[in-house]
């Protein structure tokens, strides 16, 4: 019996080592492809930047364009082109690396079957996460500024609520993309999203009572003949900003 246990263990260790030996070259190929293409990208970007600066690309583009171009000094067309070249090389490195990783396994390999989808999906998931985070920050700022200018006392609360709505949506999308969690994610997302929406609705509803009542009072004042002794409130309505 002990011999059988030993045999099973040694076979299992052998299989694990074989799998690892198969896995490592693929991983190494992926890393090498990414590193080499990143280095090439950096080199190309540097050369291109020198070339475009030498030919005064930014100035030529501004002069020859009918439409007035609106670039920030730190984000000129030269920088945009060089960055695009660099990141195109990095993405190309990933694509080549993943192909090499895929080729390192036989088509029916279990490792390839489980790992490759995660690897390819993880690139999409990272992009989704970055996009979602940026969108959340942008929307949160938009809501905060608009709410403050509309003199809503709960401006920050509203902004944070919108930010978390987008972040929760992003997280759920990323997990769904990676096929992690299954129905648990859907359920959790539904509960969280619904909860945030309900909270915001209650907050806005309760916080806007004054605005609604003022609006109603204004309508009533318009309909009912005004009291001769009534003086309209002097507010910023009598100001002319332009």
């Amino acid at each position, binding site marked *: 019996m002990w011999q059988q246990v030993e045999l099973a263990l040694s076979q299992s260790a052998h299989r694990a080592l074989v799998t690892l030996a198969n896995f490592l070259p693929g991983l190494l190929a992926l890393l090498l492809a990414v590193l080499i293409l990143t280095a090439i990208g950096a080199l190309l970007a540097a050369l291109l930047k020198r070339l475009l600066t030498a030919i005064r690309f930014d100035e030529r583009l501004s002069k020859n364009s*009918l*439409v*007035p171009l*609106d670039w*920030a*000094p*730190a*984000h000129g067309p030269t920088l945009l082109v060089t960055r695009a070249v660099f990141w195109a090389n990095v993405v190309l490195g990933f694509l080549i690396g993943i192909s090499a990783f895929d080729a390192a396994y036989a088509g029916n390999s279990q490792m390839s079957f489980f790992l490759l989808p995660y690897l390819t999906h993880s690139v999409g998931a990272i992009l989704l996460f970055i996009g979602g985070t940026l969108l959340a920050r*942008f929307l949160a*700022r*938009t809501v*905060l*500024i*608009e*709410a*403050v*200018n509309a*003199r809503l*006392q709960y*401006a*920050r609360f509203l902004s944070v609520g919108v930010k978390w709505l987008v972040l929760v949506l992003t997280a759920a999308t990323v997990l769904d993309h990676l096929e992690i969690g299954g129905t648990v994610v859907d359920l959790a997302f539904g509960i969280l999203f619904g909860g945030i929406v309900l909270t915001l609705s209650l907050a806005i509803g309760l916080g806007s009572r004054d605005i609604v009542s003022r609006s109603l009072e204004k309508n009533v004042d318009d309909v009912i003949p005004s009291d001769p002794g009534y003086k309209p*409130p*002097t*507010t*910023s309505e*009598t*100001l*002319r*900003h*332009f």
Partner: protein
Amino acid sequence: MASSPTNTAAATPDTGSPVSTDLLIHLSALSLDTLEPTLANLSAAFSGQTVLVAMPEIAIPQIATSQTAGLGSVPSFANLRLLPYTPAAPSTTNWVLTASDYLNAYKLAQEHNASACLLLGPDSHTMQPESIRSLADATLSSSTDLVVSHYHLGPREGLVNSAILYPLTRALFCTKPRFPLATDLGLSLRMAERLATTAQRFTAANQQDALLWPASEATLAGYTIAETDIPTRITPHPTAADLNALLSQILGSFFTDIDAKAALWQRIRSVQPARTITEPPLPAEQIDVTPMLESFQLAYSNLHEIWALVLPPHTLLGLKRLSIMPPEAFRIADNLWARIVYDFILAYRLRTLNRSHLLGALMPLYLAWVASHLILIQSGVPPERHIEEVAQAFETDKPYFVSRWRWPDRFNP
């Protein structure tokens, strides 16, 4: 600039009298109910002289129909030769002169060999004929390229102009027009051509309602600028009610213009002589500034981190002091306001944050300035004197702005 044919039609009414082609009057955004008083004003202003009047073509049939039908109510404007033009599509910006107005005016002036143009904005029927005449006389004088109207507004009117447009134009471009965005202008032909060239860049990009800044254009070209008093005139109201959107539109255009002309204003340094201050009577009723102060305090507690991206620590400290100031003593120091505006322009240029966010974050600060200004004038200080002090503060702090513009990372006090 290359000329292109416009859709001008035969003049109506055309009396056959000799036409004085010295001056072309361009009327923008003319509504049918203001047509008659506008033409009557022009007729009175130029009595005994025939002038060309360009007006939107929608208004021409109204006159023709009225006159052929023999309606007694329509007076005959024998000395006006009317030239129709196709107005730009209606937009929310038709309360000021837009790129299409400058372009139309120049094309018509060139086609009819006019030596100068008078651009009259909406509601020009509220101007006195004498005012129109003096604007025309100043324009036709050979030494002036740009004549800007100087309106005599009340102490609570034109506040954006008083807070930002006027002080900035005066400090940066060293020009004196009190109303850089005046709706009534006089242009020499070369000034009209220059503005039309600039306008064409916008209209080619289908931005018919883009704003132009004639004072800075004239300074850039080295042309002469003069002002004419327009004592009575109802300045047109913006059609859009949202102050935030209006402020973003006007200031966005203005800051872009400042950015585009950075090479010019960095090298010119001069201080404009002090204006003669007239003291209009203050309205009896006082304005409640509490909503504006509350708006500022709300913004201070919520937008502090956004302001911190734009403003240096010293300015933030000044805002902190303001946030705890009692309403009766609330006062934004002139140099603090100048630095706030300068830092916002710099952030606009550097795109420190999204530009619509940036201009939105400026609004509570502008309202705080308005509150401070109103408190000051309600205490008896003449409004024009305060506005002059603000303009002088902008002039004094111009070196700060130039330094920050040149070395935004290094120079951050």
